[in-house]
């Protein structure tokens, strides 16, 4: 049992609304009015969101986001009420007025069994739905089942049904080709054909095997026959080829016989040797005659040749003289040069010796024959001596330099000041934190900023000068007290407003009534008794006069009309009288009510004064003027900010003081250590000053510490320099002593060297060495002079030996001896030339003699050969029985010819078979001819050609059939096609599943619709008839059903005609649909599920009268359902105010 009403709808934070409430408590129709965009649809949407939860994705949270909230007071028919707040969140979305979470179950007593979908579709109606409902009526020709379903479900079932059928058509059509299932079936058919084509039957495989076997057999047979024919053809061809050879063979045999008949035939040896013998005989004859002539020419040359060999016996001596003469002449020149050189060298040696030992001669060999090693020793000693002396000089310089440096370092150290202890000062310096000053400055800046903020906050509240502590001590009213007082004010305002509105309305209504009364009073007066009497007399007269006379009809009718008019006038007046009475009663009522309103307003004003006073008391502690109630919340917020600023300011000031104390302490300590106490003892309060002083102090301490560091560094450096100089000096002195000792040792070794060289002891290093080198030069010169003298002796001896030999030879050969050395060359040359001439003559003679003996031997040999040859030819004559060389040559020629014939015969034999076969072939050749053979071969070629073609054909067929059989290798084409079939079947299954699901849905929906019809048809038709009659203002008196199997609705007009919906006007069909919708809703009331009905501008196609009628119908339902009408049309508001009874029309204006 519900009959739920939303007594108050609070748009707390929803869409563009903030805290907007609609009081929907009153009975009758509630009209929510606002221009477009004023939030009408927002408010409408709030209803289901309130009852069933705010959508997660609602579009009305654009402003408040997750704070979006709705509130309401719900009441049920049994008087139970519930305050709820609906929030946009997953958890605790529903709470009661105290914020206690409620479960959705809490709403069940109010909602009954109506779910959100049902509520939003069945309990709400807008103009578009109404129009499409009207259209549905026309289109469906009033099908009752469809209509009832549409009316009950708010249209959707039909749309869903349409969609289902549309999708079904896309999936499958009985005669179609393009829908998915039809297309799939088409593909399936094709693929199944593929599968059938690809499927291999066992018989096909066996056929293929047999076909291969057959081809193989046939091929075998053809091959055998072909081979036989080819053999035969080969035989014939061979015979044809051999025929010419056989003919030649026969001819050769005959020629051989002929040659043998011509005479004797030389044997092979004679035939081969004979040409050679004849050739040799001719050659020997020619050689013999040529050599005999040459022999004669040699003899002549020998007799002419010259003979003188006297010098040949002295040839060896003459050749030696010729060889030596040039060398001896060179020796003679060298002899003279060397004796002059020896004299010159001795003179130079003596002169050099005297430069060292003034009076010495070259005979004093001990003076200059010194060992050459001495010179090297002397050079070493000289170099050593120089180095020792240099070292000594260096060492002495070093000693002097370091002594100077030590003195300088000593002076510098004694000039530096003495160090003092600064450890305390350093500790104090490092104890000052690095960021002390910056922190202080930060804190100070922050303090200033906070102070400024605090002052601004204070000024914003118009407070006098106050310290933060004072502000924190202020005691103000609690927030709850303030909001309570505010609510009280608001409630007063509202009541005042309402009262004033009621007063105003009543006053205006009274004025209107009075105007209406005045109009009624001023209207025409009613007919008097006299007038009535006159009229009646006139009628009677006419009746009497024209009774039965047709000419009297016209005046009689006029009279009747006039009488009727008078009666009408009277009736109207009677109504006016009635109206006037009503108006007067209402005016009297209003006059009684208006003072009540005024009194109530007075009381409200008094209450307001009391509230004002308690408000003032609440703000007693407030340091400035008491704030307005509307401002209170803001003031409290501002004050909270001020308090928090005061807190912060207080805190930062404490920090600041503490930091300043620390700064002062550090400054004092540093001053003490710097011993500055006397100069500036007082502590100043100025932070800037204190900071500057500390900074200055820090700088001084830093300077002091840096100074100390510098002195310490200088002293350390000076001490280090002094120590270095002292140690270096000691080192240098010890080096001087060591070098001095080395110089002494060297001097001793030098004296010893001078003694060894035979030089005086006073010679210095370089002079002594120059002397020594001179002495060594003298010794070398003496040596070279001795060498030259030696050469002179040896050359003299060689010259005398040569002179002796030459003179002896010349005398022996009867030649003259030259007087001087200068004639030697020419004498020797002449002798040698003569010897050469004699030698050449002797050689020529020996050659001629040798030639002569050789020629004589050759002539003798040729004679012997000729004799041998002639005896062999004689032998040949005897063997062959011939007598001449010409005959012999003829036998040889026949032998050669015969031999050629035999060779040709042998060649022919090679191309022919042997033995029995040859005999056979000769026999065959005799029996046939070339022409005959040619014809037979042509026949055979033809046969073979045919057989080969047949063989190739079968070969090809066999290959083909084998390939075909091999192709049946277990391929998967059929399996692939089966996979395709399976795939298409899968697709079909999916589509069919969808189709059947849709079909099931369709069946269910149709069943549902039918069920609606059977259960709702009677009551809904009855109720809809009433409503339709009312809505059409009596033009239609009801609804009836047709007699069809699927009955359809008919509108019954006041004239009794039954009209099908498609014959109704647009407005009327909309009304009919509205009637059905509203009638269907009654079902919910019966079931106790009456939820508020919300209609949104459904009067679009309605004229004013229909609108009024619709409003009346809605008002008629308003006791069972709460009725909320949303509209943006003023005339709807006007119509409602006019048409609905007092107190049953509530207009709620939405803010612009």
């Amino acid at each position, binding site marked *: 049992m519900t009959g739920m009403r939303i007594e108050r709808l609070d748009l707390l934070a929803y869409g563009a609304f903030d805290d907007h409430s609609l009081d929907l408590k009153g009975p009758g129709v509630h009209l929510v009015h606002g221009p477009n965009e004023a939030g009408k649809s927002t408010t409408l949407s709030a209803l289901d969101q309130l009852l069933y939860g705010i959508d997660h994705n609602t579009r009305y949270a654009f402003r408040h986001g997750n704070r979006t909230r709705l509130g309401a007071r719900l009441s049920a028919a049994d008087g139970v009420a519930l305050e709820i707040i609906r929030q946009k969140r997953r958890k605790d979305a529903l709470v009661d007025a105290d914020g206690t979470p409620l479960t959705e179950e809490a709403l069940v007593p109010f909602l009954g069994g109506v779910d959100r979908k049902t509520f939003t579709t069945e309990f709400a109606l807008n103009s578009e739905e109404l129009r499409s409902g009207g259209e549905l009526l026309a289109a469906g020709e009033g099908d009752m089942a469809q209509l009832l379903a549409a009316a009950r479900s708010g249209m*959707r079932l039909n749309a869903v049904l349409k969609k289902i059928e549309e999708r079904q058509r896309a999936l499958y059509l009985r005669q179609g080709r393009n829908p998915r299932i039809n297309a799939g079936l088409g593909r399936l058919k094709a693929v199944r054909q593929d599968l059938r084509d690809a499927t291999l039957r066992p018989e096909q495989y066996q056929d293929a095997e047999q076909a291969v076997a057959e081809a193989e057999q046939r091929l075998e047979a053809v091959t055998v026959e072909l081979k036989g024919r080819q053999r035969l053809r080969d035989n014939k061809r061979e015979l044809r080829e051999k025929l010419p050879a056989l003919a030649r063979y026969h001819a050769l045999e005959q020629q051989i016989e002929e040659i043998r008949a011509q005479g004797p035939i030389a044997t092979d040896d004679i035939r081969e040797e004979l040409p050679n013998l004849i050739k040799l005989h001719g050659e020997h004859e020619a050689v013999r005659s040529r050599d005999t002539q040459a022999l004669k020419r040699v003899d002549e040359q020998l007799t002419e040749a010259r003979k003188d060999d006297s010098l040949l016996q002295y040839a060896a001596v003459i050749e030696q003289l010729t060889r030596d003469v040039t060398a001896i002449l060179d020796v003679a020149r060298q002899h003279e040069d060397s004796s002059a050189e020896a004299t010159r060298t001795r003179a130079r040696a003596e002169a050099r010796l005297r430069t060292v030992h003034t009076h010495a001669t070259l005979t004093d060999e001990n003076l200059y024959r010194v060992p050459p090693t001495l010179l090297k020793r002397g050079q070493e000693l000289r170099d050593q001596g120089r180095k020792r002396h240099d070292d000594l000089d260096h060492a002495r310089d070093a000693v002097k330099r370091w002594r100077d440096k030590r003195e300088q370092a000593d002076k510098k150290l004694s000039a530096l000041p003495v160090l003092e202890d600064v450890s305390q000062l350093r500790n104090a310096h490092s104890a000052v934190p690095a960021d002390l000053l910056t922190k202080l400055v930060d804190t100070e800046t922050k303090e200033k900023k906070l102070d400024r903020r605090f002052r601004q906050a204070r000024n914003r509240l118009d407070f006098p000068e106050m310290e933060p502590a004072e502000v924190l001590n202020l005691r103000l009213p609690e927030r709850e007290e303030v909001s309570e007082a505010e609510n009280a004010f608001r409630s007063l305002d509202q009541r005042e407003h309402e009262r004033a509105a009621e007063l105003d309305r009543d006053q205006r209504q009274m004025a209107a009534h009075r105007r209406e009364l005045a109009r009624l009073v001023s209207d025409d007066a009613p007919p008097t008794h006299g007038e009535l009497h006159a009229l009646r007399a006139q009628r009677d007269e006419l009746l009497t006069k024209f009774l039965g006379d047709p000419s009297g009809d016209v005046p009689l009718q006029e009279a009747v009309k006039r009488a009727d008019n008078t009666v009408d006038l009277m009736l109207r007046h009677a109504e006016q009288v009635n109206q006037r009475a009503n108006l007067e009663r209402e005016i009297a009522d209003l006059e009684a009510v208006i003072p009540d309103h005024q009194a109530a307003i007075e009381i409200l004003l008094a209450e307001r004064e009391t509230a004002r006073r308690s408000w003032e008391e609440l703000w007693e502690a407030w340091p400035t003027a008491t704030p307005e109630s509307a401002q209170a919340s803001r003031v409290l917020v501002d004050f909270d900010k001020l308090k928090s600023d005061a807190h912060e300011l207080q805190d930062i000031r404490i920090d600041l003081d503490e930091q300043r104390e620390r700064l002062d302490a550090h400054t004092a300590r540093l001053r003490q250590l710097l011993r500055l106490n006397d100069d500036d003892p007082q502590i100043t309060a100025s932070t800037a000053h204190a900071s500057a002083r500390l900074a200055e102090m820090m700088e001084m301490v830093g300077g002091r510490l840096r100074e100390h560091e510098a002195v310490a560094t200088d002293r350390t450096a000076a001490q280090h320099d002094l120590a270095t100089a002292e140690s270096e000096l000691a080192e240098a002195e010890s080096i001087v002593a060591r070098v001095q000792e080395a110089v002494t040792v060297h001097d001793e070794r030098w004296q010893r060297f001078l003694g060894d060289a035979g030089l005086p002891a006073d010679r210095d290093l370089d002079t002594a060495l120059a002397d020594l080198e001179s002495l060594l030069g003298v010794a070398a010169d003496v040596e070279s002079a001795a060498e030259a003298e030696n050469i002179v002796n040896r050359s003299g001896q060689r010259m005398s030996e040569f002179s002796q030999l030459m003179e002896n030879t010349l005398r022996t050969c009867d030649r003259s001896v030259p007087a001087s050395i200068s004639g030697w060359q020419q004498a020797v040359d002449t002798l040698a030339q003569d010897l050469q001439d004699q030698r050449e003559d002797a050689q020529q003679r020996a050659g001629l003699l040798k030639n002569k003996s050789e020629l004589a031997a050759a002539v003798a040999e040729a004679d012997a050969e000729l004799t041998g040859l002639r005896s062999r030819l004689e032998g040949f004559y005897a063997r062959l029985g011939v007598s001449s060389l010409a005959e012999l040559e003829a036998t040889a020629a026949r032998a050669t010819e015969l031999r050629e014939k035999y060779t040709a015969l042998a060649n022919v034999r090679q191309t022919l078979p042997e033995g029995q076969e040859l005999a056979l072939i000769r026999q065959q050749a005799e029996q046939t001819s070339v022409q005959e053979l040619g014809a037979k071969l042509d026949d055979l070629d033809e046969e073979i050609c045919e057989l080969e073609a047949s063989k190739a054909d079968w070969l090809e067929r066999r290959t083909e059939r084998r390939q075909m059989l091999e192709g049946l290798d277990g391929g998967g084409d059929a399996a692939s096609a089966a*996979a395709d079939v399976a795939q298409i079947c899968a697709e079909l299954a999916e589509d069919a599943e969808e189709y059947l699901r849709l079909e099931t849905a369709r069946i269910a929906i149709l*069943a549902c619709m039918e069920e609606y019809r059977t259960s709702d048809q009677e009551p809904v038709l009855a109720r809809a008839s009433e409503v339709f009659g009312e809505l059409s203002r009596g033009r239609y008196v009801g609804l009836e059903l047709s007699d069809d199997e699927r009955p359809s609705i008919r509108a019954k007009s006041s004239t009794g005609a039954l009209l099908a919906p498609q014959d109704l006007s647009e407005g009327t069909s909309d009304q009919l649909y509205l009637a059905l919708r509203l009638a269907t809703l009654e079902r919910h009331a019966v079931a106790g599920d009456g939820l508020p009905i919300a209609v949104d501008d459904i009067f679009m196609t309605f004229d004013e009268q229909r609108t009024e009628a619709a409003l009346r119908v809605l008002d008629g339902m308003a006791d069972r359902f709460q009725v909320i009408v949303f509209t943006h049309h003023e005339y709807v508001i006007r119509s409602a105010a006019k048409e609905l009874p007092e107190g049953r029309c509530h207009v709620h204006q939405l803010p612009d």
Partner: protein
Amino acid sequence: MFWSLQFKIDRASVVGFTIKRESMKILHAADLHIDSPLRGLSRYEGAPEEDLRLATRRALENLVRLAIELPVDAVLLAGDVYDGDWKDYQTGLYFSRQMGILGRAGIPVYMVSGNHDAQNRTMRTLKLPDNVRVLTTGNPETVRNEKIGLAVHGQGFAQWDLTENLAAGYPARDGGLFNVGLLHTGLEGGHSDHKRYAPCTVADLEARDYDYWALGHIHTQQIVREEPWIVYPGNIQGRHARESGPKGCIVVTVDGDLRVRSVDHHDLDTARWERVDVDVTGLDDTDQVLSLVQQRFQEIPEERLTAVRVTLRGRTAAHTVLWREREQMLNELRAAAGYHPSLWLEKLKLRTSSEDTAGTGTTGLLTDLRRTLSALGADPDGLTTKLSRHPLIGVIPRRSRRSRGRTASIRTTRHGSNARPTRLSNSWNPSSRKHGDRNAHRTPGPSRLRRLR
């Protein structure tokens, strides 16, 4: 043959004065269903369809490769090599070639026919290579292979609807050899999904006193018992969403004392079926749902082609939008799957509910519809009758209709997925799965069919 003989001799070693065998490996597989297509996958742009077309063949090739690489001493096939209604003789030729490869590697194959094989008329004339021994169907028989020490007992299906207890008639144990019972059966107790062919009980099998029962027919890998070993290897390639998870074969290692040393599963499948249940409770919109599913896609291993069925569950604010934009959602998920080259989105199932409790009233349209629907649901036969009269039912191929006589639209309960492997033996070696991974390859070579002119 020479080298394989040599190999066997090398494997025997002399211990004391008796020859002791070294270990023996047997590969046990069943339910190959060669060329049975993968069902339920509808084509869409970007789906890796080529790779899925001949998945059962690729799995068989993986089996052959595994047998040669390990190597194994024998291969046992426990029935259903073919699909019963499959008519392409090429499938038989293909199987024969694969067996030929094993033959050239010296590996004997022992097989029995299953109900599907018996049903299949096409393959009756097929000749198999010499290394394949198909056990008789009229009577049980025993095949002895002394060389490797194996005795295989078995009997195939003579007709497809065989309901006799074949196991009861199997021969007695053959002493001194490793005794294997090769049988295609729907073992009693459980497996209501499978029809009861050649029914028998565990006790029947135990009574034979064999060392190992190599069973076939149940497509889920299952070790029924360890003493003696009674094992279903499952099929070698999942073919639809109900055959999810890894698929492959069993390799049994037997030691010199003829005791089972280990029973290892090896993956052979090239494509796999997975279900991805996504809880979308509390998600606000489809974008969030989409990105959550995308995350789940990331978790699916990439190394093997995987067909995924996505089910969304839970209360979500996006419930209504998901249903309304189901097609778009499906397309977006398919596009998302497209980023994973080996992912195929098989189906999107919505099992979500609305967050909106306020919508559950007791009056109004939705309530009425719900009531009407539940009234329809309460009379499934009535609804089925209504729907089956629809012309669509006549034209939709039988393959596209769901099994067990119920139409797609009113299947309200989920078909129980087949029981997962209940238990793994102690010697179960998870790392051996890698083997299957390595073998997985997905590029089917171009297949040709030259038809007879």
